[in-house]
């Protein structure tokens, strides 16, 4: 039905745009706008990462290099605009960041894309470490430990917009995010995007139909570098500061987690991942020191039980919705959620008590408040209770899993009947 006008696609994109416009009007707290801005940046970055991992099958551990280098060039450009040595509108600054990302994508892509699979992954890590080590050697460009700070309110205000208030910055980021989303989606529909999928699935056959897999990987990496650079420049506008740790391996690992948790097999997966991970990181880091540990465990559980990410969990239930059997799953799911909550309660209690004993006990004593209760971590009782809750949760979860399985068996029967099998 390619000749038909793609109404459905238009509807989805319009809805996306509407959500992005309305979001800051609904969430009006001070930190909400800043978080939404970060989500917009993370979406561009995660989608550009998925051009490599999801679409071309290149597992990169160094994607933050392009983000960070784009950001540093953008920061210096912004300073030059402020010093009146460069005439360039601030709203188009992401183009400068993108160009820098593209240039470094071309340079490093030339070296790295001769490889694929695991060697590519290791080399991307080596390049990331090299750039990170270099960033400490050249303080005049990377600003050493303190980074490069800038001021986004420069030049003449266009129609009263000078990017002083953060809401204006949000709409700038949202606009760029929307444009980049459409551009990256459009790219998946081009011959290059299709060949990238072919190279991911079977490079040998891709070569047989007359395409050079190395060339396809190189082009995809360069373009992904461009979009990462755009995201980096937006980060500079948002925070007015960029430090060398934004191009380090931790940042690279972070974008990998976002894309993977969201789901690398679907175009919209990394969007979900970027929104969820950004939210979790700022929400969890307010409450607990151990958030990195929880986050790592969450990631490991996703790999073990849902390697397709959240997006694939959603599409998994499509047949159940179509055959109207989703109701059979709701009750087992509710039970599983309750059991998982018990398990997590025990785990969180254990981890928090350990952290308290390890880091705070010397200053404030061994008594801590957890879930609104006072407990002494020096005594055995809270540990036994927490471990007990953990075990009970595990047993409950194993028990409920049977009902989930039988619910799914029912759905499968219904789906097969609908297919006429």
């Amino acid at each position, binding site marked *: 039905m390619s000749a038909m006008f793609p109404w459905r696609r238009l509807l989805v994109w319009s809805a996306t745009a509407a959500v992005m416009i309305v979001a800051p009007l609904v969430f009006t707290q001070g930190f909400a706008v800043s978080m939404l801005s970060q989500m917009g940046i993370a979406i561009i970055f995660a989608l550009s990462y998925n051009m490599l991992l999801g679409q071309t099958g290149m597992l990169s551990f160094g994607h933050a290099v392009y983000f960070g280098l784009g950001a540093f060039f953008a920061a210096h450009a912004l300073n030059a605009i402020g010093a009146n040595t460069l005439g360039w509108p601030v709203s188009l600054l992401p183009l400068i960041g993108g160009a820098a990302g593209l240039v470094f994508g071309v340079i490093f892509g030339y070296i790295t894309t001769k490889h694929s699979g695991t060697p590519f992954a290791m080399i991307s890590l*080596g390049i990331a470490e090299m750039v990170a080590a270099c960033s400490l*050697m050249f303080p005049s460009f990377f600003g050493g430990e303190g980074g490069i700070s800038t001021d986004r309110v420069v030049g003449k205000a266009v129609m009263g917009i000078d990017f002083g208030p953060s809401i204006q910055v949000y709409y700038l980021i949202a606009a760029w995010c929307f444009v980049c989303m459409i551009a990256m989606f459009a790219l998946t529909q081009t011959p290059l995007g299709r060949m990238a999928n072919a190279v991911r699935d079977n490079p040998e056959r891709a070569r047989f139909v007359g395409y050079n897999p190395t060339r396809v990987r190189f082009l995809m990496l360069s373009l992904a570098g461009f979009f990462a650079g755009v995201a980096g420049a937006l980060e500079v506008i948002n925070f007015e500061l960029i430090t060398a740790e934004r191009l380090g391996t931790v940042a690279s690992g972070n974008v990998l987690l976002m894309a993977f948790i969201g789901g690398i097999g679907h175009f919209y997966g990394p969007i979900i991942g970027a929104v969820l991970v950004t939210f979790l990181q700022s929400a969890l880091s307010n409450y607990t020191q151990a958030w990195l*540990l929880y986050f790592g465990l969450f990631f490991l559980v996703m790999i073990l039980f849902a*390697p397709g990410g959240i997006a694939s969990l959603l599409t998994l239930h499509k047949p159940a919705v179509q055959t109207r059997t989703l109701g059979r799953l709701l009750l087992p799911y509710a039970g599983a959620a309750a059991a998982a909550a018990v398990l997590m309660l025990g785990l969180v209690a254990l*981890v928090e008590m350990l952290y308290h004993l390890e880091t705070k006990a010397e200053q404030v004593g061994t008594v801590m408040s957890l879930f609104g209760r006072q407990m002494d971590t020096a005594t055995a009782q809270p540990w036994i209770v927490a471990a007990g809750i953990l075990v009970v949760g595990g047993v409950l979860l194993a028990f409920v899993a049977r009902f989930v399985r039988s619910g799914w068996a029912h759905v499968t029967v219904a789906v097969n009947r609908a297919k006429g099998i």
Partner: protein
Amino acid sequence: MEFFLVTLLNSLSYGLLLFMLSSGLTLIFSMMGVLNFAHASFYMLGAYFAYQTSTYVGFWPALVIAPLVVAGLGAITERYGLRTVHKYGHVAELLFTFGLAYIIEEVVHLIWGRAPVPYRIPEILDFSAFSIFSTQYPAYRVFMMLISVAMLVALYLVLTRTRIGMIIQASLSHPDMVQALGHNVPTVFMLVFAGGAALAGLAGVIGGNAFVTEPGMAVSVGTIVFVVVVFGGMGSLAGAFIASLIIGAVQTFSVAFDYSLLSLFGTIGIKVNTESGWMELWKVTIAQAAPVLPYLLMVAMLIVRPKGLMGTREG
């Protein structure tokens, strides 16, 4: 001369330590096609376990216990982690080990804190073995080299002279055939993984107190080990050995040299404009550039010879 000899010995002991890590990584990689991101984390765990054990029973039992515990953890990782994600492909396996490295680091934070732990070399080895001109050479470094070499000889003998070594070698190239002959290949995989982890753990036991035992040690050594494996050629033990010694020498020697491009220009008589923006680049000394050198070597090797020093496969 004195400086050269001492640094050479230091680089040798460090290079051998790197090989203990990269050999396990290479074996696991060529057998299962899995690049174990958590390999350096096992190294770190080896050091921390040895520290903890040595506070109770002393260094010598720790030398045996810590690698065995790490081997056990490695076996569990393979059996209940990697084997579960194996059906989702290599990317999922790699990401699993990546996530595991993440968690191990956090758990180390949780149990031992963020500061380095006082894991010291045992008193009985805390003397100078011999002197080179005026420099006293520490006995512990000699001990490190002895342990590494003994381990390597043992590894070589096990792989080439024993029955299990033959099965491992056969499983590398023809796992289906070995399975058909009645051997339990998944168990062999688990053993190799545990063995590689034990080697990493042992490297941690003897390296942790020679250098420093802190939560960042896995990341700093891990990336160097990756560089070694890429430089030497993926899946080649001999390549990993040579690369370990080269990278070890580069890292050890480079910190000691204070030359920069500027001093080179001075020697060959090129005048440099001191106002130019490139001054910062010309002024960088080799010692300052030391952290970058291994990666530069790797990139240079990839441009000249993409499959690495002795690698057999490309891409």
